[in-house]
């Protein structure tokens, strides 16, 4: 349990009966046709309410491991970016004392109350004598007046150093007790004390390489924690699927770099600019862009100026097919034609991939609207037969369709960069490239065909069907789902092994193929009904 997250069910540390469903399945020994194969790395959604609990869980591990109090455990964890494994490793390597000293956890045994001190203390900061009740001794043993401590804390909090405020003694590395900080600052500025508390809490997310805020806008308030910081895609409870590495929307099988380039390219006017240079030229007189309209190289602007299409120079109007009288520009001709030819090819290539990418994106949007109409059909059926049946197979089928559809759309920008442009230029000979491209396109087309079949099945008007036909539809959906999934996996195999596997370095690592929750909540239950 815990290796996937149900998007409707927030991760919650208080919930102690997690895992029961799983056991039930196991106990009943359900026959399971859809094999559950290796998924992507596991992750959890941490809601605003559970941040504290999540943080406490990690702290408890360290408290138990090292016999530390909560404040010391937190200091140690902040120092090591909440990496318990690292703390454990360093404990074995260096021992507790060194581990604590380096992180600023006071190790000495200094009693907190000050019974055997004189009634007044000379503060070494303000040089005043203050009564013991107006001074505070930190765990490291250093004592200063409350006023000075408070000022010091306020300066540090405002400097953004709430998470490791050190003692004022210049030779003391120890981090001050957060409870004392809160109490002293709170007496002067309650609002800042609250902020301090929040900063400390957020450290668990912001200083933690295994946890990141969900990048949703407006922010849903959740964070995602992964077990392994390996490249992966995660899904927040708010529905946003994103890449844990670059925090943009899920983009596998494109690598983070490809996706960055692609989104830039799509936004960029550069393609349009490219088109303009191919198809228009500025008039040498009024500088408006003029489109070439005829076959010959003389173009005329609306302002009346005639000019040469090849070099853009102003000319007279007398011309024939090959020359404009009194004008010669032969020397530029070749270069210009080469350039415009190249731009044309680049543009066409981009358009080819972008059109397909866009088409699947459009289908994706349309299909996400199917959810409602499917729900309507279910209600109708239930009304007709006056019994409620389990239709999760079709709802989940739709869910998987949207995942397949997204992957499919992303295979186009992937191919755009894989088989053209600069990124892999040096890595393949053109023969190699051609062969690999054909292999890839073959897989892509098969996958594409199945995605369309799945889409058609999910659009069927099953609200008129009788029991037999519904059973039949379910069987067909399950069959197509399985073959689509296999094809998708094959495509990923091809990408990971045949295409990217031979590349050097890690720049083009992609998130592995995973359909997180669909296999178990999706097609498992209907299958048991199907067999029963």
């Amino acid at each position, binding site marked *: 349990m815990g290796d996937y997250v149900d998007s409707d069910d927030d991760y919650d540390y208080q919930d102690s009966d997690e895992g029961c469903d799983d056991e039930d399945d196991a106990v009943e020994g359900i026959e399971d046709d859809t094999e559950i194969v290796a998924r992507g790395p596991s992750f959890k959604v941490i809601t605003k309410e559970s941040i504290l609990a999540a943080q406490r869980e990690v702290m408890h591990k360290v408290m138990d491991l090292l016999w530390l109090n909560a404040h010391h455990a937190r200091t140690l964890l902040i120092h090591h970016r909440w990496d318990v494994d690292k703390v454990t490793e360093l404990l074995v390597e260096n021992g507790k004392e060194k581990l604590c000293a380096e992180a600023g956890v006071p190790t000495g045994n200094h009693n907190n109350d000050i019974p055997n001190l004189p009634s007044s203390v000379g503060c070494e900061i303000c040089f005043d004598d203050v009564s013991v009740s107006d001074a505070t001794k930190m765990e490291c043993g250093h004592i200063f007046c409350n006023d000075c401590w408070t000022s010091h804390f*306020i300066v540090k909090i405002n400097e953004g150093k709430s998470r490791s405020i050190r003692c*004022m003694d210049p030779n003391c590395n120890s981090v001050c007790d957060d409870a004392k900080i809160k109490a002293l600052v709170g007496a002067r500025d309650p609002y800042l004390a609250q902020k301090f508390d929040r900063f400390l809490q957020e450290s668990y997310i912001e200083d933690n390489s295994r946890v990141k805020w969900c990048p949703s806008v407006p922010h849903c308030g959740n964070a995602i924690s992964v077990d392994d910081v390996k490249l992966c895609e995660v899904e927040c409870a708010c529905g946003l699927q994103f890449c844990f590495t670059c925090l943009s929307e899920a983009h596998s099988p494109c690598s983070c770099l490809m996706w960055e380039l692609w989104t830039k390219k799509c936004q960029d006017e550069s393609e349009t600019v490219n088109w303009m240079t191919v198809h228009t030229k500025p008039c040498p007189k009024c500088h408006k862009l003029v489109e070439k309209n005829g076959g010959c190289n003389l173009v005329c602007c609306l302002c009346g100026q005639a000019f040469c299409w090849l070099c853009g120079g102003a000319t007279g109007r007398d011309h024939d097919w090959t020359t404009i009288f009194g004008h010669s520009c032969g020397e530029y001709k070749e270069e210009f034609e080469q350039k415009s030819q190249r731009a044309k090819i680049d543009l066409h290539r981009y358009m080819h991939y972008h059109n397909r990418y866009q088409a699947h994106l459009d289908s994706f949007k349309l299909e996400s609207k199917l959810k409602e109409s499917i729900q309507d059909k279910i209600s109708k059926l239930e009304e007709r037969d006056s019994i409620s049946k389990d239709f999760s197979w079709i709802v989940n089928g739709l869910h998987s369709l949207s995942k397949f559809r997204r992957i499919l759309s992303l295979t186009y920008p992937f191919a755009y960069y894989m088989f053209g442009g600069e990124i892999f230029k040096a890595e393949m000979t053109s023969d190699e490239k051609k062969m690999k491209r054909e292999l890839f396109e073959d897989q892509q087309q098969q996958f594409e065909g199945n995605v369309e079949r799945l889409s058609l099945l999910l659009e069927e008007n099953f609200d008129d069907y009788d029991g037999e036909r519904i059973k039949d539809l379910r069987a067909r959906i399950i069959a197509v789902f399985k073959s689509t999934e296999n094809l998708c996996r094959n495509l990923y195999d091809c990408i990971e092994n045949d295409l990217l596997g031979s590349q050097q370095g890690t720049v083009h690592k992609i998130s592995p193929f995973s359909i997180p929750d669909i296999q178990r909540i999706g097609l498992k239950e209907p299958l048991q009904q199907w067999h029963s």
Partner: protein
Amino acid sequence: MIDFARVQKELQECSRDIESSGIKVSPKSDSLARLTGTIPGPIGTPYEGGTFQIDITLPVMGKFEWELKDGYPFEPPKMQFATKVWHPNISSQSGAICLDILKDQWSPALTLKTALLSVQALLSAPEPDDPQDAVVAQQYLRDYQTFVGTARYWTETFAKPSSLGVEEKVSKLVEMGFPEVLVRSTLESAGGDENLALEKLCSG
């Protein structure tokens, strides 16, 4: 706000042991927020014999209005050399100092005197890996002899108001018949030492 009571006490303390430390701090005007510190160049360094003046500005208060009391000493004093000095961690242009205790390693328990002592220690022990002045640092690492010469020359020129001024030395040597450009470069490579420069000029 600056804790002026503390600054007063610091000034008293400092003037008490001026004999032993050689370190002086005095207010520039009637405000205690702007002061001048004076440190002797450490013995056995190219700064030996020089007296270096440092402009000190005490931070008045934080960026936020509720930080009423939180200027100096909760934030570090700003220090800058007023005397020109050739050193990898001090800007030869502005006199800005690159020293951790004047930045994030500041502690309110440090004082102006301890800070000036640290600046003095920096003069004895440059850290060219964390330079303020890249040109000086390069020279320090690649051509230590030239670095020492230049540093000594700058000390002679800028940190010893009582000694013979450079211009006077230059005109003296020019009067002896050496070209001015050569005189200046030789004088600089001799660390401002007039006699050494003359020797070099004669032999070269």
